[in-house]
């Protein structure tokens, strides 16, 4: 497509509004885990990396770049989710 596809813009705007609303509601108590959670979610770019590495007739260059990308994204998402959970595990109520 040579021009911007309005559908995408539509989705982006909705998601951006939603993001603003959701994050505003996060208690400051959890800002650190929030940061690493969103960091982990950003690793969703792995889907792009997978497409590039695995697709029919990918050039060696594409394969190499893609493979590294998959690796990096995996590191990001695995460590991101795990550390978030590790942090959250520690938040305890009184007497629990």
């Amino acid at each position, binding site marked *: 497509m040579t021009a911007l596809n309005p559908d995408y813009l539509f989705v982006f705007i909705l998601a*951006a509004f939603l993001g603003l609303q959701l*994050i505003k509601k996060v208690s400051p108590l959890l800002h650190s885990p929030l940061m690493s959670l969103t960091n982990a979610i950003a690793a*969703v770019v792995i889907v792009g990396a*997978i497409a590039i590495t695995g697709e029919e007739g990918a050039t060696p260059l594409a394969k190499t770049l893609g493979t590294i990308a998959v690796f990096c*994204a995996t590191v990001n998402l695995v*460590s991101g*989710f*795990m550390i978030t959970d590790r942090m959250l595990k520690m*938040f305890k109520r009184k007497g629990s």
Partner: protein
Amino acid sequence: MDAFVPFAAIAASSLFILSLMWMSHPTTARRGVMAGQLGMALAIVGALVHHDVVDYDLIIIAMIAGTAVGVPMALLMPMTAIPQRTAISHAFGALAVGLIGAAEYYKHAHAEYAGTFVLWALMFEMILGFLTCTASVVAFGKLQELLPSKAIVFRGQRIVNAAVALGAVVIASMLALDPTQTWLFPLFVILVLLFGVLLVIPIGGADMPTVIALLNSYAGLAASAMGFALGNKLLIVAGALDGASGFILAVIMCKAMNRSFANVMFGGFGAVAAGAVGGKDDRVVRSASAEEAAMQLENAASVVVIPGYGMAVAQAQHKVSELYQALSKKGVDVKFAIHPVAGRMPGHMNVLLAEANVPYEQLVELDDINPEMPQIDVALIIGANDTINPAARDDPSSGIAGMPIIEADRARSVFVIKRSMSAGFAGVDNPIYYNANTQMLFGDAKEMVGAIAKELQGGGGGFH
């Protein structure tokens, strides 16, 4: 099989949304992580089953290797290193974004012209991606103190930065209009990577959290841009959510420091931190011993503990928890006042105290504690400095004037645990140390708090 793909994307997006929604409160937060993981799994499956994907070996290998690196990274990381961890993890994610963009670019370079929009989106994505990558590495270096954590400023810095940025953008546009000029591409990448470095070196260590939040936001936008280029709505949504998150956290931090983005990014703030201890040392400073502190603490009805970066440096959180336990046993009402930018990351103190099993109901925010301060018997400041500096409130000429603070100085009496008279990150002198109701407890936070706790447990010994 392919019919499933779009719905997988929808489900994954919804799960990411729920994930952030549940993140709003500690009781539901872990469910949030669950949702996030599930969403990610769905997204990956959706990508793998897509008919275009034929060769799986490399993908599997890369994912296994990534996991092998990621797991220890998450498990072995001490809680005090959370900010660094986030920074380096960003670097990985951003690098991935950049490389994907590069691969896409080369495809377009050799296919027929795909149209301006896609290429603009790609270039935008790569700029954000590569920039975020090196910037995050520098941020990591500063937080890990591999690099000088104070701002590095040199003459003509802004001109250099501007030039590099301009160069990158110009080449980007050239490539967007004519992707076949592949020889320009490496140059473009190098300039962007360089710009990432230049962007962060003039920023002081303690401002890294703001930077990291911004980079988080960039990473999100990069993902969205990729979504636009590849026509993938899941990427657009996830990216938008992250973009929003990083942006809002950065705004919150700036508000909590009464500083503008511009000041954080270009202010060279904290550059002077070292040289900053005012010579007015004719003023008297009262110092006390752990024993004396313990005595006053146990006779107090209400105590507010105000932790800061120093507690993190000293890894004193467990001792602090012991202190809390000992005082609670003696019927003293102990609260923890958490400044939004205490430490080196938003929510830094909360995580450390949580790690040490301090129940989160005891943690109160700035706005809630300040009105109560005058009724508080003892304010115990542990390695906090800028965040309790009354100059921010009283002295309009101060470097941190207008920054909201925890008004520890309004408590009946104040104890300050730190190693020396040296200033905090902002490098501004702190008058609270010279107040008549302030006593200094010089020493490493961990040892000092430990000693006080011992005293309270009737163990005797300690500093004197």
